[in-house]
Every structure is written in structure tokens, then in C-alpha cells.
């Protein structure tokens, strides 16, 4: 693997499979009474969050702590950043404090790349603007693999605001690397202009692809998109692109329903679908810890077997 994990395209197929396999091993730790390995003892992981994201931050924090790393949570709110300190100044401060890895969440696309130019430690992208969220894609792939087995040839449908979605961007890259066939479904206004060059199919019609899908991932639709005329009304969006109970009934028996959260129940996904037996939404959150443990371990620990040190 490369030194940083900033984009899903940083991962070769072998890299991605190694992360997923390592996560499987590490997941066993979560089932123990003492959920801790000494693997990253003495190393410092900084969670540098310029955007609120309790779920992702806690997931990374739990992952680092289960590997015995020291964790520093840095929230930009109320910090010197809010007083105008630049990202570069913050990076230099972290460097001086000896951060071995920095997990960065930032509202600006590309901020992790800038950070990687300025510090020596490993940089892990926990979501940057509308660019990427590679560990989310990894946990999604991990979840799919648990339910569907190998992803080679599997048909994955991603529905919603692809244009602004870092989750969709990372998933398209990673899932195609892993051999899955991805179809993006959205109104044309919520698709990138060059989506035709992406390694996936595109459809404007959700009903035509549902019956052939092994997994359906619904994306959150932000209500402010409506003001920018991406679609006429929430009601129309929900009718055309929402996963209703009726649509859910057309899915194959084995298909799973996914959502990166947080959900707009009743908009992109009906409440009963979100809570259905084939919904993996809660499971995805738990899998996130295992996958992030694997990423931290492989970037920071690397040389020994993932859980060998525990023996």
C-alpha cells in the first residue's frame, strides 16, 4: 500500500483485498471481552476534524484505541483554526507534536493531499468535501462481501446525489477495482458531467435496474439541493428515486439495502425499508470500526500479522 490512504484509487485490487481480509481478522477482536490489541502501542493518531462527524470520528477513535494507539481528537470548532490559523500551521503543529498518523475530515476537497505535502506522518482521508471517503467505501465493500461473497461480477446500484457524494465517488472506484458492476442511478442534474468516463453504468430509471441488483446503496439527499434546482420537489424526488416498500419488493431475495447515513427517512429511503431484515445500515457502522482498524494497522504497523501480537 501507499503511505497514505486519500483516495480509493490508492488501493490496488490486492491492497483492497488485504484490507478486507485484515478487517475480517480484526473483527474477531470486537467479539472478545477485552477488545484491545497492543499492535500500535506507542503510536499517536490524531483525529483532525474540520467538519462535524460524530459517527466517523468515533469509529476512527475506537479503531485506533482497540489497537492501543494514543488518540488525540482535534476539532476545528473553538480551536485556533476558527481564529484563522491555516491548515498548514495546524499541520506543522501536529508534526511538531509527533503525530504518526492524521485522520482528516475536511469540507474542502483535496485538503488531505495538501496535508500530506506538509507532514511526514500517514494521512488517512475521513472525507474531504465532495471528493472521496475511502474508508466508507471499504466498509461498504466489506459489508457487501459478508453478505454476497466475492464481489466479482456482482451488480451494485448506487442511487441519489452522486454529484456531491464523496461516498459514491470512492465506491465507484473501489467496487470497480474489486470486479463489481456498478450502476449509478440519479436525475441527470445530480450526476457529474463526465460520468460517462467513469468505470460504471448510468441510468435515470431506478425501476429498470432494481430487479438486477445484488446491493442497492441509497445516498442522502440534502434538502438545500432543492433550492439550487437540482430537482423540482422533494416529493417528486422521492417518487422517482426513493426506495419505497413497493420498490423494495422488486429486489432479488438475496439483495441487501445500504445507506452511509445519516438517512432522510421518507425521502430517499422508506422507514420500513431502512428497518427491514435486508437493510445493513446499522451493520455498516459496526463494520466501519473493523475496516478502520485494518487501515490503521496496515499503514502504521504493517510488518507483523494483524493480530499476531495478541498471541
Amino acid at each position, binding site marked *: 500500500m501507499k503511505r497514505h490512504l486519500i483516495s480509493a484509487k490508492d488501493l490496488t485490487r490486492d491492497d483492497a483485498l488485504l484490507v478486507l481480509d485484515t478487517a475480517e481478522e480484526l473483527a474477531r477482536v470486537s467479539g472478545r471481552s477485552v477488545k484491545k490489541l497492543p499492535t500500535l502501542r506507542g503510536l499517536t493518531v490524531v483525529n483532525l476534524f474540520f467538519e462535524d462527524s460524530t459517527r466517523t470520528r468515533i469509529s476512527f477513535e475506537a479503531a485506533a484505541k482497540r489497537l492501543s494507539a494514543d488518540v488525540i481528537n482535534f476539532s476545528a470548532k473553538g480551536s485556533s483554526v476558527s481564529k484563522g490559523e491555516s*491548515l498548514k500551521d495546524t499541520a506543522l503543529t501536529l508534526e511538531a507534536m509527533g503525530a504518526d498518523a492524521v485522520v482528516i475530515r475536511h469540507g*474542502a*476537497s483535496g485538503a488531505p*493531499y*495538501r496535508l500530506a505535502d506538509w507532514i511526514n506522518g500517514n494521512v488517512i482521508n475521513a472525507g474531504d468535501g*465532495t471528493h472521496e471517503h475511502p474508508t466508507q467505501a471499504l466498509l461498504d465493500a466489506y459489508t457487501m462481501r459478508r453478505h454476497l461473497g466475492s464481489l466479482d461480477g456482482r451488480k451494485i446500484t448506487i442511487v441519489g446525489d452522486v454529484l456531491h457524494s*464523496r461516498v459514491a465517488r470512492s465506491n465507484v472506484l473501489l467496487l470497480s477495482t474489486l470486479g463489481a458492476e456498478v450502476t449509478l442511478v440519479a436525475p441527470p442534474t445530480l450526476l457529474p458531467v463526465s460520468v460517462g468516463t467513469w468505470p460504471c453504468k448510468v441510468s435515470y430509471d431506478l425501476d429498470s435496474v432494481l430487479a438486477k441488483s445484488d446491493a442497492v446503496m441509497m445516498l442522502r439527499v440534502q434538502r438545500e439541493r432543492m433550492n439550487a434546482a437540482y430537482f423540482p420537489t422533494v416529493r417528486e424526488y422521492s417518487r422517482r428515486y426513493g426506495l419505497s416498500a413497493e420498490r423494495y419488493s422488486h429486489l432479488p431475495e438475496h439483495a441487501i439495502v445500504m445507506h452511509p447515513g445519516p438517512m432522510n427517512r421518507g425521502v430517499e429511503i422508506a422507514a420500513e425499508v431502512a428497518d427491514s431484515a435486508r437493510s445493513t445500515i446499522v451493520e455498516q457502522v459496526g463494520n466501519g470500526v473493523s475496516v478502520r482498524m485494518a487501515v490503521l494497522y496496515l499503514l502504521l504497523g504493517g510488518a507483523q500479522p494483524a493480530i499476531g501480537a495478541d498471541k
Partner: protein
Amino acid sequence: MSQYLIRNAAILGGDVRDILIRDGEIAEIGIGIEAPAAEVIDASGLVALPGLVDLHTHLREPGREDNETVQSGTRAAARGGYTAVHAMANTTPVADTAGVVEQVWHLGREFGHCDVHPVGAVTEGLAGKKLAELGAMAESAANVRVFSDDGHCVDDAVIMRRALEYVKAFDGVVAQHAQEPRLTEGAQMNEGEVSDRLGLRGWPAVAEESIIARDCLLAAHVGSRLHVCHVSTAGSVEIVRWAKSKGWNVTAEVTPHHLFLTDACCEHSPLGRSYDPIYKVNPPLRTQADVDALRAGLADGTIDCVATDHAPHAVEDKETEWADAAMGMIGLETALSVVQAAMVDTGLLDWAGLADRMSVKPAEIGRLGGHGRPLESGSPANITLYDPAYRAQVDATTFASKSRNTPYAGLELPGRVVATFLRGRPTVLEGKLV
């Protein structure tokens, strides 16, 4: 006054001649000129060009003297071979009154290493709502002929029409920054494959092209001169070509960086960085197809001239996240080298063509009588001596500009300005400022 005898210069890259400079003019051009009182400059291997003229420079004074001043900016211009620059109006305060343009003009007279011709704002405060006092600026000591809200588009069609009509009274020209504002809200870079991959909001080509098309029609309707700033797309070139084919009085400029760099630099810069805001400019760097069309348009005269859009910024305004970074790059000290690489070394323009696009045409558009003149006896001695065979990595630490936001630092570019003369007075000799 000092005399200079330039020996063996290739005039516009052609005939090798001596040039005798006396009393601020070219006194004689010939072979074997003798002038015992003159200081002799050996120009063997050098190309002699009329002093370059920039239609589009940001000098930042008044207001952001930490980024650039009239003095530092004109020193940079002289090092780049320029003898005249047009100073853009988006200063603080905005150059939208006779007082501000006269201040900039006076600073140029006092400290300038080249002539400084202020550009007047089209609208008060660049707000696009109310015409600035265009006539007062035209009649001021600064004698303004170019008006622009550069950095902002005059998007209100009625205001644009009125501005075009009004400047006819004093043979002015409206230089439009063509950017449809709604189509470019939050835009960060060229809209296309790269912006989609980087997750940066796109600035679509049509946002530029639709304004240019509208303005060409407006200029034709009222019979005015329109100048299009920093054309960046293949479609824009086509629209200007169409307007010219109609006989309309439309001119256009292109920047060196739009002739040389593409949006791919934002993803993988030649220095190996992603999201490096050094490449963040407005209009944004476009695709290779656009670069090819711009080069062809400049070669066939559809695009009249090269203008630098020299935009100095402090280090901290660029060493930040892409979204927060200031837009623009400096260009005065590298323009000639970049245009050589893009146009001359590729065989698209000869040196006479380059002189036309970087001196003659911009002087005509700006109505600068003393610049952009042929190198012949009797012309003002505004001359640039340039060594096209020189090769070196660009060393930005030697720049005269106060700013360093150049994408070329560390890259090898051809050529070097050896000497610049402003009305017979050297501003650069042996590559160094005088």
C-alpha cells in the same frame, strides 16, 4: 542623453542589423553603424522585438501593496521585456474615479520601470450596477481608454450595452471578464473529467462562451469596440472568429498559462502534487483541446494578443486548501518564455507574429501611440532584446515581483530577456534590472 548601439540583433528574428538609439528614439537601423559616443551592446544571437505591451496586469496598488506595488510590478514587467502595462482596476479602492486612476498613473510616472496605463472600472465598485465615471477617467491625466471590471463580469446586459455605447465618445473599449455568474457559483476549476474526479465544483466553458456571444451581439448592435479578456475555451475562439467574420469590432486576448497548461495540472502537477492551488486561476485552466484551439486562434489572428493576467498573491493566500486559495498566478517575468515554448518553438508563430501579438496589437487595442511601433528609425526606442536559445530552470527567487505564485518555478523554460529599453533608457541590461 545616453546613446546605445545595439550590434548584430536579429530584427524580429530576421535580418541581422545594428540599431542606434539616440534621444529616446531609434536613430538608425543598418549594417556597420559607427557611433563613437554610443555605449555598445553585443546582441549577437539575440532577437530584437518592439517593447512588449501588456493589456492585463494586476499591480495591486493601491490596497494590497504587500502583494505588489506599481514599482515592483513594473520592475517585473521590465524583466519580462515589457515597456508598457495596463494596470487593472480591481484595487482597493477600486479604480473607478479619476482620482484613483490618476494616482496609479502618477505612481507609474514616479516609480515605473515601464509605462503604466490604468484601466478604469466599468461600474462603481465593480458591482455591476451603476456606470463609473468613464468620461472623467478618460479625460483625466491617466487618459484611460480601456475599461474593465475584471475579476467580475458585467453580467447585466443593459449595463453592458450602456458601457459599450458610452465609451464610443472617447474611443474607449470595454474589456469584459466573461463569466456568467449563476453558472459559476462556487466554481473551483474547469468543469470536466478532472473536476469530477477531484470533487471540485466545475466552471463550465459555456459560462464564458454565452457571455462572449451576448457581448459580441451587443457590440455589433451599438457599433462599439469590445475586447474579451483571457479567452480560455475552444468555443470562445469560435465565437470570436464568427464575430470577426461579421466585421464586428471585437478583439480578444489569451494568457500565456492558458496556452501552456491544462486542468490536468490540478490533479497531477509537474511537481507531483495534487490540488496545488498554484494552478487555481480565473478563468480556470482548461483541456488540451482548448489549449490547441487557443494556440490556433492566436496563430491565425482570431485572438489578437497575449495578455499576462499577472495576478500577484501572498504565499499564505496560496498555501492553503484549494477552495480557500486565491485565484491567479503571476506571469510578467515568464510570459515571453512561455509564449516561445507554446507558439514559436512549435512553429505556430514566427518572431514577427509574436511581436504582433505581444506588442503591436495590445498597443493598438489600448490606443498607446508610443508603443507597439515597428523597429525603424524615428520610432520611440522601446525595444526588447531576447535570447531564445537560453535554457534554464525558472528560479522564482530572482523575480522582481513581490509575489512568487508561479507554476513554472523549477521547470525548464526557453529564453531570457537580455535587455529592455524604454524610450531609449535601459530598464534591463544583461538580464538585470537597471
